[in-house]
């Protein structure tokens, strides 16, 4: 039976993937992509994950988990498996898997789809599951603590520094995505602004009016958010109100930076927690809605399977297919950030080790499916429209007329009238050069959703999608700033003990200010960059996220190597090796590639030479100094990431070498075995 299922699934996957790969020249239906995904995920979950759980991790259902042993009714609570699954999925799924595939569609949909499927099944899902398992066996210790325990102080420090750096880059790039979605769009700006008082109202309701009544407060909040989307459309037609929400990118960046600081120092109950409830419901609801709509609509993919830009000449970001598709799509295939949630929070809810496969591997399968849906939403647009929305004008010749000519010359015909009528339909002034992925994804999502749930509502669905992404992004921005603040306070506390007190207000203000200044700087430079900033920041984010995954995989590989089943360490060593190659090559190219579009140092040199020769237009010359400095700073940061991840990998290889030589390896530090007293089978 088991074999028959496996053969059936493998045949299904091969058939669907073969259909996609061989179907050159004609457009293909999105259902093929979903079918291929479903078969690959089912194979991975049913066989590979089950084998890892049984043979590599030796998950033991008779062993009491920390949730049972340390049950305190708050963070340690034995929880039913599907509830933990939902909880964990809501924690790992953010804007990342929506944006990465949208940008990577520049190469065509095929490379991205293959990497999302293979990367998740063999890499990302495995990482999440094994980290979750390791942390569950260690009383819910965090990745940083496990790195220190299993690798030593150097590995521990590297993991913490890596986390802090990735947080800064992540928040900057997400801030840039929101800014680009709001730029000169009163509808989007007013809707995004409205989410803030709505969240605060929900917070006050839950705190003061009806304490602890989260469900009813959230329901009211979601209703208000939908009202805000509609209200933004009304406001967009009021000549008196419109200018209040029509802003330049620099002003909006200033707003996001100020907002980030205020949100980080406000008490969590007022803004962060209520908005997180709202975004959780929106997230789960929208994912389900989108999946249903794709199945009902069965859209054709208009983007070619592979575009000419696999050679590295793409307008959205520069760099060839290898290694950059693997960097651009981090979340959705492998995301190092997940290791932070898989250690620390979720393990304290795991009721039995038998649930680790569903929660760790299964949640990541679902996130990967979200990435596939984002790719479908990008690929169903006319390629000309897709490139016109996502490319900075500087990469297409400078203005809309040149952009249309350039794109048509590349074989992606599009006209100014077509762009204008689409912009009009979605209720925007223009859709040219709306880089960052959010507007393009919103157009894709809006055309799917309005195709099924109400034609003619394109503009409302578009701004619903923008609001949905913004709510995610602002949550990540607050939560990330806060985590950065705690880490910084922890570090500063070693120097000046008073600064380590997390609730001492001067320390809160100082450390929040430092974290916000760090990401605010990258956000600001991204905004003033005539090339749109995304083409620099997104690869940097991808590299840092994949390097964090490298660190996490190195830590769990060391854990497996220290245990009795060390011969199976290839399960995590294989994705680690791939990530080490991909990120090292990508980092090397970002550092030293002679093309100024790819290499940071070459970019800085090129700009400096043109500035000295007086060859820059005055607007660009005014900011060139800052751009040059920024490219050098980006280079230094990339080098730092490269060093950090290799320090951790070499630390792990030291243990592998001892194993292979047959030397004694000190065992890994698991909590002692205690038999479970929970009865079998009582689960939701």
């Amino acid at each position, binding site marked *: 039976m088991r074999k028959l299922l496996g053969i059936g699934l493998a045949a299904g996957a091969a058939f669907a993937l073969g259909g996609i790969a061989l179907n050159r020249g004609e457009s293909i239906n999105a259902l093929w992509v979903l079918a291929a995904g479903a078969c690959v995920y089912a194979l991975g979950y049913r066989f590979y994950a089950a084998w890892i759980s049984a043979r590599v991790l030796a998950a033991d259902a008779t062993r009491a988990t920390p949730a049972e042993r340390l049950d305190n009714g708050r963070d340690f609570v034995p929880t039913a498996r599907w509830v933990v699954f939902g909880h964990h999925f809501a924690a790992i799924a953010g804007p990342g898997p929506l944006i990465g595939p949208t940008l990577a569609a520049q190469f065509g949909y095929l490379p991205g789809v293959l990497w999302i499927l293979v990367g998740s099944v063999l890499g990302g899902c495995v990482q999440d599951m094994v980290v979750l398992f390791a942390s569950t066996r260690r009383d819910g210790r965090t990745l940083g603590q496990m790195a220190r325990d299993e690798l030593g102080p150097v590995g521990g420090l590297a993991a913490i520094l890596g986390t802090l750096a990735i947080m800064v880059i992540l928040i900057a790039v997400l801030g840039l995505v929101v800014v680009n979605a709001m730029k000169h769009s009163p509808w989007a700006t007013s809707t995004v602004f409205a989410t803030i008082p709505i969240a605060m109202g929900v917070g006050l309701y839950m705190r003061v009016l009806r304490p602890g009544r989260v469900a009813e407060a959230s329901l009211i909040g979601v209703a208000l958010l939908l009202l805000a989307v509609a209200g933004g459309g009304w406001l967009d037609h009021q000549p008196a109100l419109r200018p209040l929400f029509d802003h330049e990118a620099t002003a909006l960046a200033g707003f996001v930076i100020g907002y980030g600081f205020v949100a980080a120092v406000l008490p969590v109950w007022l803004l962060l927690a209520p908005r997180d409830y709202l975004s959780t419901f929106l997230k789960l609801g929208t994912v389900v809605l989108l999946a249903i709509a794709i199945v009902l609509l069965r859209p054709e993919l208009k983007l070619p399977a592979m575009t000419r830009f696999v050679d590295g000449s793409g307008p959205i970001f520069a760099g060839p297919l290898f290694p950059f598709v693997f960097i651009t799509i981090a979340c959705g295939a492998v995301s190092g950030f997940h290791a932070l949630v898989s250690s*620390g929070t979720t393990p304290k809810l795991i009721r039995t080790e038998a649930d680790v496969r569903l929660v760790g591997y299964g949640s990541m399968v679902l996130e990967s499916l979200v990435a596939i849906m984002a790719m479908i939403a990008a690929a169903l647009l006319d390629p000309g429209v897709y490139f016109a929305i996502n490319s900075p004008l500087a990469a297409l010749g400078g203005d809309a007329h040149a952009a249309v000519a350039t794109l048509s010359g590349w074989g992606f015909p599009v006209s100014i009238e077509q762009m204008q009528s689409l912009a009009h339909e979605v209720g925007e002034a223009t859709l040219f050069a709306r880089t960052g992925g959010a507007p393009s994804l919103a157009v894709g999502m809006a055309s799917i959703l309005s195709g099924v749930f109400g034609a003619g509502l394109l503009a409302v669905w578009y701004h619903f999608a923008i609001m949905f992404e913004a709510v995610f992004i602002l949550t990540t921005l607050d939560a990330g700033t806060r985590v950065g603040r705690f880490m910084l306070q922890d570090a500063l506390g070693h120097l000046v003990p008073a600064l380590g007190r997390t609730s001492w207000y001067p320390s809160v203000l100082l450390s929040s200010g430092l974290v916000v200044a760090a990401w605010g700087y990258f956000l600001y430079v991204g905004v003033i960059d005539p090339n749109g900033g995304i083409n620099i920041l997104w690869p940097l984010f991808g590299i840092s996220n994949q390097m964090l995954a490298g660190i996490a995989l190195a830590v769990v590989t060391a854990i497996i190597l220290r245990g009795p089943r060390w011969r199976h360490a290839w399960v995590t060593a294989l994705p680690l090796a791939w990530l080490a190659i991909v990120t090292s090559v990508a980092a090397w190219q970002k550092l030293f590639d002679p093309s100024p579009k790819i290499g940071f140092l070459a970019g800085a040199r090129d700009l400096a030479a043109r500035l000295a020769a007086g060859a820059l237009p005055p607007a660009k010359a005014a900011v060139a100094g800052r751009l040059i400095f920024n490219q050098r700073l980006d280079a230094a940061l990339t080098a730092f990431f490269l060093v950090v991840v290799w320090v951790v990998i070499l630390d792990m290889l030291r243990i592998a070498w001892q194993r292979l030589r047959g030397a004694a390896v000190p065992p890994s530090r698991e909590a002692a075995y205690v038999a479970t007293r929970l009865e079998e089978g009582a689960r939701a």
Partner: protein
Amino acid sequence: MPERAAGLARALLARLAEILRGAAGLDRYEHYLAHARRAHPGEPPLSRAEFFRRDEQERWSGVRRCC
């Protein structure tokens, strides 16, 4: 037969609602109450409002959300 199908659908929906409640953390006070009665019988448990205040602050002191 239709009653059985309706019953099945109702049970499925109820379970889905339960999962959603748990995933969003709406049942945390109930968990706490159960724990308090089991582990500290005799002591009066915190009220819903008191628990909510303390819990919310604690829950946001670590990495809870990804990208």
